[in-house]
C-alpha cells in the first residue's frame, strides 16, 4: 500500500492538529496519523490554562511574560524564541476564541485568567479545569471543517529517508490489521508527544507518552537536545500519580506536611516546589494538598475534575479532607532539536509540541506555556512544512520495503517479562534520574538501561495475533523508551552543574 502526500503529520494532539490545519491552509495536501484517535492525546489532560498577557485580570505585559519565562528557563532557552511565543500569545488566544473554544469568561465579557506558579500576573486563560480538552476538541472540529484526512490507530515505526538524506515519508504499523504501510510525503511533521512515561507509573501522563517520535527521529539521525530536563509536577496524587492541577494552588491551595504545617511557598516554580516536597518526604513526612478553605462552591466551579479524581483514586473528598501528594514526572522539556522554523536537523523533518524542543521552556517550563507552545509553534511547523514541501517538490522514496522492527521482535526469546522490566526501570528512573540526582545514581541507571538493551532479545511478546496486538505495540513503545532513557541519563551525566529541573548533588 502506497500513499503520497505533501505533508505527513504524526500525532493528533493540539500541536499536530494545529500544524495540519496550517499546512492545509498553506495549500498542502495533508494527512494526520495517530496511534490513538485524535482528541485522546496528552493535550486533553492540560488543565491549568494557556498563558497570554491579556491583562484581563489585573495588569500584565508581554515583557513580563517573557521575563517570567526566561527566569524559569534558567538560561537554557532561546530568548528570541520566547519573545516570539509570548508576543504571539494574544493572537493565539484570539484565534482560539474565533474558532469557538469555550473559555471561562469574566463578568465584563473577557476571557477569564488566573495565576499559575512563576507568573507575575494572572495570565493563564482557562476553561474550568478542562482547558486542554476544550482547545483540543475545538481545533479538531476545525480540522474536520478543513477536510483534513486523519487516520486512526497508525503507529510510527520508521522515518524514511532517501540517500540524499532528505526525509521522504514514514513506515507505519496499522494497529488494526497488523500490516506495515508506507506513507510517502515531501515533508514530515512529528507531533508525537513527550517521554514522561519512561518513569512508568510515576508520571501524570497518559500511557501513550512513550517518546516514540523522539526515539524514531533519533534513529533516523535527528539531533536531540536537553533531554535531561524533565519536569516533576509537585502535586500528583500519591497512590496513582494522577495530576492535581496547579490551578488548585493558583486558587489558593496550601501544601502541608503531616504536622499540618506549610513548609514551602505554594506558588514557587515547579522545580523548586517539587524539591521542597521531595525533601520533606525524605524526612519521613507525608505531604498533602489542602484546598478545604477554598470552599465547595469554588472547588465545584473551578476544580471539578480535581474533586472527582481525588475521590476516585484516593478516597478523599478535597472539600473536607487533605489530598496526599508526591511530585511525579509531568512534562519533558527536552526533545528533537528544531530551529525557529520548527525544522529539525534532518531535511524535510519538522517537529512541534512536546516531542520538539523549541527552547522556549529551557530547564523548567512554566505552567500555561505548553498549551501556548503547541498553538504558536504548531502553526509555525505547519506553515514551514507546507512551504518546504512546495519548494522541494516530490521526494519519492527510492528504496522501501515493509520489513521492520516487528520481524526482529518475532525472533526474540521472550523468556523475561518486559512489563516487569518496564515497571522496574520506571521506578529506578524515578529514584535515580528524578528530582534530585547524583553522579553515582545516574551511572547506575545508565548501566541498567544498557544492560536491558544488550539483553533485549531475552524479552519479547507472547501475543502472536496480527490484529490489534497491544502486547506488540507496548513492546515497541518500551523499546523506544529504552532509547530515550539512555539519552536522558547520558545528558544528565554530561551536565555536571544543577540547572532548573536538573538538580544534581
Amino acid at each position, binding site marked *: 500500500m502506497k500513499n503520497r502526500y505533501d505533508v505527513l503529520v504524526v500525532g493528533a494532539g493540539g500541536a499536530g492538529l494545529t500544524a495540519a490545519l496550517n499546512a492545509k491552509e498553506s495549500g498542502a495536501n495533508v494527512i494526520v496519523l495517530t496511534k*490513538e*484517535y485524535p*482528541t*485522546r*492525546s*496528552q493535550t*486533553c*489532560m492540560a488543565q491549568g490554562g494557556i498563558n497570554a498577557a491579556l491583562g484581563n485580570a489585573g495588569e500584565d505585559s508581554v515583557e513580563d511574560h517573557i521575563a517570567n519565562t526566561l527566569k524559569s528557563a534558567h538560561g537554557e532557552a532561546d530568548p528570541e524564541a520566547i519573545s516570539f511565543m509570548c508576543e504571539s500569545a494574544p493572537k493565539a488566544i*484570539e484565534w482560539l*476564541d*474565533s*474558532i*469557538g473554544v*469555550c*473559555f*471561562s*469568561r*469574566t*463578568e*465584563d*465579557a473577557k476571557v*477569564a485568567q488566573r495565576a499559575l506558579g512563576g507568573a507575575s500576573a494572572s495570565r493563564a486563560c482557562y*476553561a*474550568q479545569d*478542562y482547558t486542554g*480538552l*476544550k482547545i483540543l*476538541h*475545538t481545533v479538531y*472540529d*476545525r480540522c*474536520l*471543517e478543513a477536510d483534513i484526512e486523519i487516520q*486512526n490507530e497508525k503507529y510510527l515505526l520508521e522515518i524514511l529517508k532517501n540517500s540524499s538524506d532528505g526525509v521522504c515519508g514514514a513506515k507505519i504499523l496499522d494497529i*488494526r490489521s497488523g500490516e506495515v504501510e508506507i506513507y510517502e510525503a515531501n515533508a514530515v511533521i512529528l507531533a508525537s508527544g513527550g517521554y514522561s512515561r519512561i518513569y512508568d507509573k510515576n508520571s501524570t501522563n*497518559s*500511557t*501513550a507518552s512513550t517518546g516514540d517520535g523522539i526515539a524514531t527521529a533519533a534513529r533516523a539521525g535527528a539531533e536531540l537536545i536537553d533531554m535531561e530536563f524533565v519536569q516533576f509536577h509537585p502535586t500528583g496524587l500519591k497512590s*496513582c500519580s*494522577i*495530576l492535581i492541577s496547579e490551578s488548585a494552588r493558583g486558587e489558593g491551595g496550601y501544601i502541608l506536611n503531616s504536622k499540618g504545617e506549610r513548609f514551602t511557598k505554594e506558588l514557587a516554580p515547579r522545580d523548586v516546589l517539587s524539591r521542597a516536597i521531595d525533601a520533606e518526604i525524605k524526612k519521613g513526612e507525608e505531604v498533602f494538598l489542602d484546598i478545604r478553605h477554598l470552599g465547595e462552591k469554588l472547588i465545584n466551579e473551578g476544580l471539578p*475534575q480535581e474533586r*472527582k*479524581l481525588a475521590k*476516585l*483514586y484516593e*478516597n478523599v473528598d478535597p472539600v473536607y479532607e487533605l489530598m496526599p501528594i508526591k511530585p511525579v514526572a509531568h512534562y519533558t522539556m527536552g526533545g528533537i532539536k528544531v530551529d525557529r522554523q520548527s525544522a529539525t536537523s534532518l531535511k524535510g523533518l519538522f517537529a512541534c509540541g512536546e516531542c520538539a524542543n523549541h527552547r522556549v521552556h529551557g530547564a523548567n517550563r512554566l505552567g500555561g506555556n505548553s498549551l501556548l507552545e503547541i498553538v504558536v509553534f504548531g502553526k509555525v511547523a505547519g506553515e514551514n512544512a507546507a512551504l518546504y514541501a512546495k519548494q522541494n517538490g516530490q521526494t519519492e522514496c527510492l528504496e522501501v520495503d515493509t520489513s521492520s522492527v516487528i520481524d526482529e521482535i518475532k525472533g526474540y526469546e521472550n523468556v523475561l*517479562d518486559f*512489563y*516487569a522490566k518496564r515497571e522496574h526501570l520506571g521506578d529506578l528512573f524515578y529514584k535515580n534520574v528524578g528530582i534530585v540526582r547524583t553522579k553515582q545514581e545516574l551511572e547506575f541507571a545508565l548501566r541498567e538501561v544498557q544492560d536491558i538493551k544488550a539483553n533485549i532479545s531475552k524479552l519479547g*511478546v*507472547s*501475543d502472536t*495475533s496480527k*490484529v*490489534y*496486538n*497491544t*502486547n506488540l505495540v507496548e513492546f515497541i513503545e518500551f523499546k523506544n523508551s529504552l532509547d530515550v532513557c539512555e539519552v536522558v541519563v547520558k545528558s544528565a551525566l554530561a551536565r555536571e552543574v544543577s540547572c532548573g529541573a536538573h538538580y544534581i548533588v
Partner: protein
Amino acid sequence: MKISVKKENGFVEYESSLVDATLLEVLNDIKQTKDNSLAFSSGCRSSVCGSCSMRVNEVEVLACSYKIQDGDRVEPLKNMEVVRDLVVDMDKAYSFNKKAKAWLSKLALNNALDASDAKINEVQSDCILCSSCYSACPVYAVNGDFLGPFALTRIWKYASDKREDDVQTKMSDVQTNGIWDCTLCDNCTVVCPQNISSKADIEMLRMKSAQFGFMDPNFGSFDGGFGFDGSPSF
C-alpha cells in the same frame, strides 16, 4: 475477586487480587501478569481522553473511573464493529461530527462573551467522544445513518454559542437522520461519563429548529396531514 471479560471466543474469567481498584487497573494487571493477549484501549487514566469506554454488566462505563465488583461482566461497546476483545472501531461514530458539520460556520472575531454566555454550552463542551452514547443508543442500533448523540450535542454546543451567526444552517444540517429520529429515551444521558444529556440537547435543537420553521417530518407525513395551525390540509 473474579471478573469475566468478553474475548473473541466468549467470556473468559480472571481472578484479581486488587482491592478497591478501577477496572482499568484490573485490566492492566490481567494483561501484564495473566494474559498478554487481552486487548483494550486506554490513555489518560483520568476520564478525559475517552479511550477506555466499555460495558460492565451491560452498562457503558469508562474503565478508569469504574471500581470493579466481584462477578462483573466486561464487554466491548455495542453498535460498533469489534476489532478485538474490548477494542471497537470508533471511526464511524467519530465521522458523524463531520457529517453534522460540528463547527462554527465561520471564524468569529471581536467576541464579547461574558460569564453567563460561557455557561450556556459549558457542559456540552466537556464531551470526550468516548462513544458510550452511541453504544447505548437504540436509534443508532437500527439506523446506522443516525447522526447520533455526541454529534448532535456538538451541534447544540456550536448553535447555542453566541459566536455562531448562522444558526439556521446549523439547524438545516441536522434535520435528516438527526434530531427528529431520536426517541428521547434518555439512555445517552444515563451513560455519559461527563454528565452531558444529548437528549436534552436534541430537545433544544428541536425547539430552535421549530423557530426557523423546520418541522418534525413524522408529524408532517400523516396522510392528509395538518397545517401549521392544526387545521386539516387538503
